[in-house]
């Protein structure tokens, strides 16, 4: 149980992988060092013995047994290193030449190398020997004293074994360290997530300030949390709005119907009351739709449909739509657009935003007034300005004018839902731009700025 639980921990997995990798590479390294040092000593000895045997074999072919015996004695006499071991015996096991007193029973087959302990001047030493058959009935043993080499080899081996041990200890403690680091880095995120799951949306992941991957992750998570927070705030606002602002028209419709039900005298009265109630309900539905649309825009899902587009023709179209309305009210609509105005966005949404601005401007313009639609683009942004000569919005109210259901003092008497500017602001925000309300002295100037294509990677 514990085992599977441990294995499921990513920290333990990383730590184990770290330890195994480190140990494996240390093992590979030590194996290689051993092979190229201690192993080399063995191979050298074997090569010497082999060369020796080759020489003696040649001698045997050229000079026969006497030559072979002589050569062995010579080689022994000239063996300054004092490490040579030879023994040549006949079929009865009688020694013909060499310095080993008798044939060791241990060396019983030709071919492989044997480790043979021998006595040297009263000291025990180790030799490495090989047995060669010389047809028809002679046997030759060639060997080297490897006592010093064996000591060296043992030393190297010991050192390597110790280093392996040290590496595994280091790897294990390193693994524990890695695991703790991992756990600690995630503890921060995990604590925040737990707090949020428990309902405390104000919690944020702490940044270490190192700007590493963990910080980046923390930033992304924090951004996500901010966004969730904003959405929640939006939902709260909408529900408040529904609670407060929809109550009025619903109450009105209800009152009308009830009044008609109990007081209407003629079918005509009843009819008229019902029709007014339908109009009220349509108004409520309109508000709902606008609210949902704003919520949809604020949720940001429409960003998937963004394309690169030129706003100039869209503005010309929408101006053409409103130009007739303006004219009917005795207002002049001037269009001053110098394109192209490239942005990355949703054309239909931008048109609706500008339509809302024009709608407001025409609505609040005095007769004989002028409404201006002007658009310019510079290096960073496309600025779309809609100005009127109406009463404007007092500076104190401008901040709140883009909130849902806000209606200025001067706007109380004009029809409208109070959602027009909120929608424009939402559209601006969705496009990474902004909506600013300025004093056009006289009147109001609404400035919708959007980032131009190329200045952002959105």
């Amino acid at each position: 149980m514990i085992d599977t639980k441990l294995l499921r921990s990513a920290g333990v997995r990383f730590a184990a992988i770290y330890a195994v990798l480190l140990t494996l590479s240390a093992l590979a390294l030590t194996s290689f060092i051993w092979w190229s040092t201690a192993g080399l000593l063995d191979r050298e000895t074997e090569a010497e013995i082999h060369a020796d045997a080759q020489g003696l074999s040649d001698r045997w072919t050229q000079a026969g047994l006497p030559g072979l015996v002589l050569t062995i004695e010579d080689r022994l006499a000239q063996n300054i290193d004092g490490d040579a071991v030879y023994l040549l015996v006949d079929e009865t096991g009688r020694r013909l030449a060499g310095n080993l007193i008798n044939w060791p029973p241990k060396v019983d087959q030709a071919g492989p190398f044997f480790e043979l302990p021998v006595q040297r001047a009263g000291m025990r030493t180790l030799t490495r020997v090989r047995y060669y058959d010389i047809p028809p009935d002679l046997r030759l043993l060639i060997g080297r004293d490897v006592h010093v080499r064996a000591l060296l080899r043992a030393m190297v081996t010991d050192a390597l074994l110790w280093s392996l041990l040290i590496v595994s200890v280091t790897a294990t403690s390193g693994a524990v360290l890695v695991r703790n680091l991992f756990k600690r880095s995630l503890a921060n995120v995990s604590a925040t997530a737990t707090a949020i799951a428990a309902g405390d949306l104000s919690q944020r992941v702490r940044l270490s300030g190192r700007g590493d991957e963990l910080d980046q992750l923390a930033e992304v998570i924090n951004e996500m949390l901010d966004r969730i927070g904003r959405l929640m705030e939006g939902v709260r606002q909408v529900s408040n709005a529904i609670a407060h602002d929809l109550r009025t028209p619903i109450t009105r419709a209800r009152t009308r119907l009830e009044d008609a039900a109990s007081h209407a005298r003629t079918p005509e009265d009843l009819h008229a009351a019902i029709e007014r109630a339908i109009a009220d309900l349509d108004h409520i539905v309109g508000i709902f739709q606008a609210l949902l649309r704003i919520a949809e825009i604020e949720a940001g899902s429409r960003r998937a449909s963004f394309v690169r587009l030129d706003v100039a023709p869209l503005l010309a179209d929408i101006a053409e739509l409103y130009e007739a309305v303006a004219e009917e009210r005795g207002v002049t609509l001037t269009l001053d657009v110098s394109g192209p105005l490239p942005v990355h966005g949703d054309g239909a949404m931008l048109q609706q935003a500008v339509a809302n601005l024009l709608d407001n401007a025409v609505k609040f313009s005095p007769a004989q007034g002028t409404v201006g639609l002007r658009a310019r683009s510079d290096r960073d942004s496309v600025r779309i300005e809609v100005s009127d000569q109406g009463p404007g919005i007092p500076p104190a109210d401008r901040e709140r004018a883009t909130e849902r259901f806000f209606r200025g003092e001067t706007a109380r008497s004009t029809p409208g839902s109070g959602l027009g500017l909120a929608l424009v602001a939402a559209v601006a925000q969705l496009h990474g731009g902004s909506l600013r309300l300025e004093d056009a002295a006289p009147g109001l100037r609404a400035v919708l700025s959007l980032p131009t294509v190329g200045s952002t990677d959105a």
Partner: protein
Amino acid sequence: MFLFVRVCGLAAIVLCSAGPLKAQAPLPELMTDTPEYCTELQDRLGVLIASSVLPPPHEVADLSTQGQTLCAHGHVRGGVQRLRRALVIMQQHGEAP
């Protein structure tokens, strides 16, 4: 794995050689570490010097004397080594001309 096999083999050998098993069986003896071999080498050297036309280099005489002294004092391996070196030098000296 290779390493471990080697290590185990080595450990066994070290154990065998270092342990009290020493007395178990008489080990074969090397005859080139005996005072007799000292004598044999001296004889060989003597023959070589006698047959040489050139007088032996003085280091041969030095090594020979040292070798004999060491052998006489029981340091057979040291004596044998010096005598062997004297022999090798004498051999090369004789072949040189």
